[in-house]
């Protein structure tokens, strides 16, 4: 890790303390949101599909805190239930991309030669394919739903992680301590798993946090287009889309509250990612 630590730009004194409080606070809110999503049935005031036709398109009130949608379903309950799909999707995408990307990046750096060349070519190819377009193609192939866009986006985000990993791992591999470990008779697997992977991790963790935000946006966009999860499922991107006709009719609560929630989550993970690891040094030059 020394190599990357040295290239970090000097931070202003006194900045550090505030940074950590902000990251910790945002992290805590994210954890709370995730915790609220799992036992949503216990917390949510209403069933997410229960309709109260008298309350249709109503604004915030004591009975419906964030109003009700065009079918009279409680927006707050749907946001809480929606957090499950909206947060589970990007979690699956980024977990897959991080594991796959880190493994490919370290293997490329360690093995070099033809493996590196072939992997780089394939990754470059997926890099040249916009994630949203890949998702749309996957939907055309498999059909609408949760699986197609999640698989496509996991593929689209893998090269992003793999490139950064490879850059750092190559730099690390050339350091003297790796040579020393090797001359002590330590095998390639052991060095990769116990030394290269931990060295790469801090930067990858930050990259993954930021990638989580954009994966969430991409996945929500697919749902917004009507190609992802289908009604009556509750999902944030779908809620923005479903609320749009009510918005034009003067009842903006569903679209706006789902939209603001998306912005908040993306802002939170971006902030955490940027503050906990420096992305400019690793990301831009990957």
């Amino acid at each position: 890790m020394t190599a990357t630590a040295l290239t970090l730009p000097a931070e202003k004194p006194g900045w550090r303390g505030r940074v950590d409080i902000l990251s910790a606070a945002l992290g805590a809110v994210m954890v709370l949101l995730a915790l609220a999503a799992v036992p949503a049935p216990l917390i949510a005031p209403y069933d997410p599909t229960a309709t109260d036709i008298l309350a249709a398109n109503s604004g915030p009130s004591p009975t419906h805190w964030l109003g009700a949608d065009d079918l009279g379903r409680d927006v707050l309950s749907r946001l809480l239930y929606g957090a499950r799909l909206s947060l589970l999707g990007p979690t699956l995408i980024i977990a897959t991309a991080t594991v796959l990307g880190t493994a490919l990046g370290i293997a490329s750096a360690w093995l070099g030669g033809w493996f590196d060349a072939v992997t780089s070519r394939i990754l470059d190819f997926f890099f040249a394919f916009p994630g949203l377009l890949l998702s749309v193609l996957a939907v055309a192939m498999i059909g609408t739903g949760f699986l197609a866009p999640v698989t496509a986006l996991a593929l689209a985000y893998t090269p992003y992680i793999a490139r950064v990993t490879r850059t750092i791992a190559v730099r690390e591999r050339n350091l003297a301590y790796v040579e020393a470990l090797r001359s002590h008779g330590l095998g390639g697997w052991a060095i990769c798993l116990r030394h290269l992977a931990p060295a790469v991790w801090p930067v990858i963790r930050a990259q993954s946090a930021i990638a989580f935000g954009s994966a969430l946006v991409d996945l929500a966009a697919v749902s917004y287009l009507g190609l992802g999860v289908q009604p009556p499922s509750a999902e944030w991107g779908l809620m923005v889309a479903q609320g749009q006709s009510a918005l034009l009719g003067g009842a903006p609560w569903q679209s706006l509250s789902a939209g603001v929630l998306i912005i908040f989550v993306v802002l939170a993970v971006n902030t955490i990612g940027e503050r906990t690891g420096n992305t400019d040094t690793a990301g831009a030059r990957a």
Partner: protein
Amino acid sequence: MRAALRTVTGALLTLLASSLVIFLALAASPGDAASRLAGSKATAAQIAVIRHANGLDQPLPLRYLHWLKSCLHGDFGTSLQYQQSVSSLLAPRVGQTLALVSLTALLIMVGGLGAGIVGALSRPGSAALTVLSGVGVAVPSFVAATLLIQVFALWLGWLPAISTGVGGLRGLILPALALALSWAAYLSQVVRASLREQLGQEHVAIARSRGLSPAGVFRRHVLRNAAPEITTVSGLAVAGLIAGTVVVEQAFGIGGIGSFLVQSVAGKDSNVVLAISLLMVAAFILTTTATDLLHRALDPRIRAAAKTREGQAR
């Protein structure tokens, strides 16, 4: 020069590989094109005739080569939904999308560069712009679309909420703003960081101490040195827009190729999906390759590095 040639060849190979992946993805999708083309009342024999006439009874590799050859001639086959040639359906829509992309690219460049330069030069501006650009990056285009519709179409009534049937620039302003917001915010962050880095360099201090005008130093030493990085990120932003049009066109009801792609996926119109995916990937690769070449032209260090690398054995 040789490196530039390699970039272009690489781009062409990537495009070829993309065409294969797109073709295979659609070939694997469920649904029989021949029976769709024949219509619901067709007999099995009629379907067989149409299948043969369209070459759908041939093995997959042959079909791919045939499709690729027709694409190069501008023939993308027949739409299964509209029973019309795909190119005639695309022609009026490509213009809409191009207009949207151009206006958005202009907004990103003006907004991103402007905000980045202000952020790098003015101290109070910097603090405000750090927060604004941080928030801006986090706003997805479809959320920006609903916010803009709420404010500018419903509250203020300045611009139409739905662009369908609205001619000229009026219908494109809100969509372009929605699409530009997060990219412009991102570009401004990169521009600010890049200019800050250059402003802190010794040679800038020396140029100033020699009494050169601040504007001249900024233009010739700071902006010039930051140009390659700014170009790269701008190019990536424009490339990213191309797929982004899909979402915004759908949000505002613009009849471009993006919203047509969504309709065609929903309607399982595989020939249209093939054609639009290929066009979008081609535009994406064209933009990134052009950016790469421009970056190379702007940064003499890369040219020098490429020359020494070419000297070494590969």
